[in-house]
């Protein structure tokens, strides 16, 4: 090689390499550019509108309203007229200094909320003068809005995502300060309601003034609004139930038997969902938490009571299924069930002749069901086996297990199994008479109102139910072809139901426990119940479905310390049924009596104990 050329060649090669490299870094590869623009580029999160929630008749239950936070980036606050600023947003100088100190201790560079949820006037004033206060800006956010002061337990609420939720969130969707559904539908359908966040990039100058879009919006993503949700709730029925429960405590759950849709889920006492909006939420929340009667405790889903007499319906069905009785089997009641020293009292009123199933149901004869329960178990060679079969039949009505539905909370309830008694008495050392209280829905048995309502729906359907659920449609899509559309069969043959249902219908005949609560001209099937309560007055219980021939509503009502079934729970049930099926309650006197009736004295007594 010519040595004179060598250096020129080397220089030329280096120059070409540099030009190629330069071309690559500056023109081909975008990532350097995007990263470097961090300082001049401001990322604006675009929040999607959270989906609305409607009731089953498309009445709006939850919507959104705007709110304006005054934000600050301490690093950028320079030479502002503090006095003027305080006057503008109506705060004292002391508050300003205090807030500023707090905000600065959080972060010098990151934006913080300076004053949350400005009033409309302050917002308007401030927005006009904002340019005079570098470092401050307004951030719009949306809060929930509830047109009805009803159903807080069903709808739930949203709140700022907590740090432990952030830690748990593996999707990386949430950031500090984001909103998240915390209870009710807001929680179970969070993913559908929240939508998809978008991002917009703008170019800002040194003073943080927006100069325009960044790269013509090439890096922007459009937010996708959350889906609207149509609930299965009938808001007017829900409201009516809440009204009926005035000054009473307990839970009501109404289900459409043909679909498993929850028509109403009431807990009393309740509260106005608007209390849990925005910044006042935490204050109000702690207030509600310590309030008498625990309004935040959703009794419809969480309170576990002994089912009482309505459970006799299940016992009758099981006895029929295992062949312990037929509808014509009769037992004579001796003021109760006697076995050795055991005596279960009964006030059915027919003590001189054998009573058949129908009569036993409408009079709620304790003897009849104790005897048939004993016989059901004795159908099998061992008590253990007989009891296990009984327990399985009972569980097939959705009792003693989680319903696995779309509600964020629930309780299992309790249907005892053989192990429970083995533990108490020793294996093989107990008889059905040892737990005869199971026959009349007392003892170890525990159910929640929603479980009892679902059990009622299964009876109404003559042997099957659909998992009770709270949502009908997500956006345009119905939940019909999801797991909620799967029919779940009980283990009792449909042929045994009519006789039992007839007994429930006759409850509303003269002499039946529901006579006083009947709806003229409507065939209802029901069963009263009274659950013994060692802490005070017994609980008043009622289950019902109507119309009996073509059930559209199945309902379970618990009224705590309501003495006995027919006193509170039965009228409340039939008023709900009347309201739902006819749209108008004609029994105004009964309605008035129930609404005005108060059990507050009972609750005060318990409080004093």
């Amino acid at each position, binding site marked *: 090689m010519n040595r*004179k050329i060598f250096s020129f060649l080397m220089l030329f090669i280096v120059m070409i390499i540099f030009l190629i490299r330069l*071309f690559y870094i*500056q023109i081909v590869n975008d990532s*350097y*550019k995007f990263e*470097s623009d*961090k*300082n001049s580029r401001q990322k604006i999160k675009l929040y999607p509108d959270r989906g609305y929630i409607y009731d089953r008749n498309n009445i709006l239950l939850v919507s959104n309203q705007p709110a304006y936070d005054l934000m600050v980036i301490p690093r950028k606050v320079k030479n502002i007229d503090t006095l003027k600023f305080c006057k503008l947003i109506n705060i004292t100088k002391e508050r300003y200094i205090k807030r500023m100190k707090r905000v600065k201790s959080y972060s010098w560079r990151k934006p913080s909320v300076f004053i949350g949820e400005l009033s409309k006037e302050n917002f308007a004033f401030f927005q006009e003068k904002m340019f005079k206060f570098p470092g401050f800006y307004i951030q719009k956010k949306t809060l929930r809005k509830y047109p009805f002061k009803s159903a807080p337990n069903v709808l739930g609420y949203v709140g700022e995502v907590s740090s432990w939720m952030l830690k748990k969130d593996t999707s990386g969707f949430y950031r500090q300060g984001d909103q998240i559904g915390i209870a009710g539908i807001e929680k179970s359908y969070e993913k559908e309601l929240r939508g998809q966040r978008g991002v917009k990039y703008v170019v800002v100058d040194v003073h943080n003034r927006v100069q325009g879009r960044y790269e013509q919006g090439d890096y922007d993503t459009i937010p996708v609004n959350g889906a609207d949700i149509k609930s299965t709730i009938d808001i007017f029925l829900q409201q009516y139930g809440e009204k009926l429960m005035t000054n009473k405590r307990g839970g009501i759950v109404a289900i459409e038997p043909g679909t498993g849709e929850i028509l109403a889920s009431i807990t009393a006492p309740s509260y106005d969902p608007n209390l849990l909006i925005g910044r006042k939420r935490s204050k109000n929340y702690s207030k509600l938490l310590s309030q008498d009667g625990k309004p935040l405790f959703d009794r419809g889903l969480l309170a576990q009571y002994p089912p009482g007499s309505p459970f006799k319906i299940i016992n009758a069905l099981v006895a029929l299924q295992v062949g312990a009785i037929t509808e014509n089997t009769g037992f004579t009641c001796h003021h109760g069930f006697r076995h050795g020293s055991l005596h279960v009292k009964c006030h059915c009123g027919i003590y001189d002749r054998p009573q058949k199933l129908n009569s036993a149901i409408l009079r709620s004869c304790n003897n009849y069901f104790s005897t048939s329960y004993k016989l059901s178990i004795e159908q099998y060679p061992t008590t253990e086996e007989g009891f296990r079969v009984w327990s399985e039949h009972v569980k097939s009505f959705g009792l003693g297990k989680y319903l696995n539905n779309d509600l964020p909370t629930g309780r299992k309830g309790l249907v005892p199994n053989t192990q429970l008694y083995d533990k108490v008495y020793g294996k093989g050392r107990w008889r059905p008479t040892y737990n005869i209280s199971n026959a009349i829905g007392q003892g170890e048995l525990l159910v929640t109102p929603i479980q009892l309502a679902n059990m009622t729906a299964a009876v109404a359907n003559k042997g099957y139910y659909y998992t009770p659920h709270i949502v009908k449609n997500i956006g345009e899509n119905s939940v019909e072809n999801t797991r909620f559309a799967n029919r779940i069969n009980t283990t009792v043959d449909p042929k045994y139901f009519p006789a039992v249902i007839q007994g429930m219908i006759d409850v509303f005949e003269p002499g039946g426990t529901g006579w006083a609560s009947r709806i003229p001209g409507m065939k209802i099937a029901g069963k009263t119940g009274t659950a013994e309560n060692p802490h005070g007055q017994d609980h008043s219980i009622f289950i019902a479905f109507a119309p009996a021939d073509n059930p559209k509503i199945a309902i379970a009502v618990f009224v705590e310390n309501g003495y006995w079934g027919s006193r509170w729970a039965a009228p409340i049930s039939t008023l709900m049924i009347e309201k739902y099926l006819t749209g108008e309650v004609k029994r105004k006197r009964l309605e008035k009596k129930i609404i005005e009736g108060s059990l507050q004295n009972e609750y005060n007594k318990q409080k004093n104990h």
Partner: protein
Amino acid sequence: MKSRSINIFANLDWILVILYFAFVFTGWINIYSAVLDQDHSSIFDMSQKYGKQLSFIIAGLGLIFIILMLDGKFYERFSSVIYFVSLLSLVGLFVFGKKVGGATSWYAIGSSFSIQPSEFAKFATALAVAKFISIPSFSLKKVKYQYMIFAIIMLPALIIIPQPDPGSALVYVSFLFVLYREGLNSNYMTLAFLTAFLFILSIPFDYKTLILIFSISLIIYIIYQKQRGKPIVKLFLYLTYIIVFLTSVDYVYNNILEDRHRNRLEVLLGMKHDPTGVGYNQHQSMVAIGSGGFNGKGFLKGTQTKGDFVPEQSTDFIFCTVGEEWGFVGSASFIIIFSFFIGYLLYKSEKQKLVFSRIYGYSTAMIFFFHFAINIAMVMGIAPVIGIPLPFYSYGGSSLWGFTILLFIFIKLDSENKSIL
């Protein structure tokens, strides 16, 4: 002769002079942009780097005037003196030196001003090399002279290395190209390139594997080339060198280098991605350059530059500012023009009638080339971070004056070229 002493500007190569002023001016503009902040905005603010750089530039004018005033023969005559003074100034650092940024490469003059003798040692060495080679009895074919010329070149480098300032020392490799041009056995060049090549290969690959590969390829080569009778001995010598070198590199890498050095190399060679650690400077500088895009963000509009993201922005990494604010258009123009400048220096050197002038010019071109190539490669992430300034652009009085002297001595020598018959 008379007219020349009156007019020091006669016969100057105006292309070089204009390029010089263009570089110095645009360099200054970029320093201004790199260090500008809200509180100091006057471009003449003497407390700021751009203000100081301006004073360096003005002082540089004085240097230029002096250089052009002196007779061209002066440099040839006094080259040995200049070289020895320069060596003394380097040695003196061990006693009187001031430590700045980990290296004792500075003399403090007053409280706010320091001078870096290694910047001046380059032109001194160039003069010495030119002088020595132009001695009529000198021949690169003779081993004795080879040793002597290597000693002249390596002496300043060896003093600079332990300061430690490996970047400045590395520049002395540029003289190898000068020697090659002047007829040094090409084996030296082969050896130099082979060394660099092996060094890079030895990092991702195990040295034993490399030795094996080289040995096998050599054997295959010999078998196929046998009948032509190639110098097999020479090839075996190269192989021996490869084995010795690789083994010692492995030893040095694992036993002598410290972790931070290893890290730098590994990041550079893509064996480690580490944008916040060792690779931070380079990553940030690439981000800054990349952000310029095609047209750049415009003068004073660089955001990376303003945000102090790139350390040493105004010194070794000044090219970032060029890339960010002037974009591909500006930085590619710079690379092309600077390459032209070096190429033009090479061309002009070849035109020199005096051997001394030719070799000095060639040395000048190669010193500029090394600075340019290493600095830009470092800033663009294709060479490790070696602290070495970009001539005329990087902030600093010593480097500006060093390069000014280096260039203008050649301009002076060249201006007398015509009058030599």
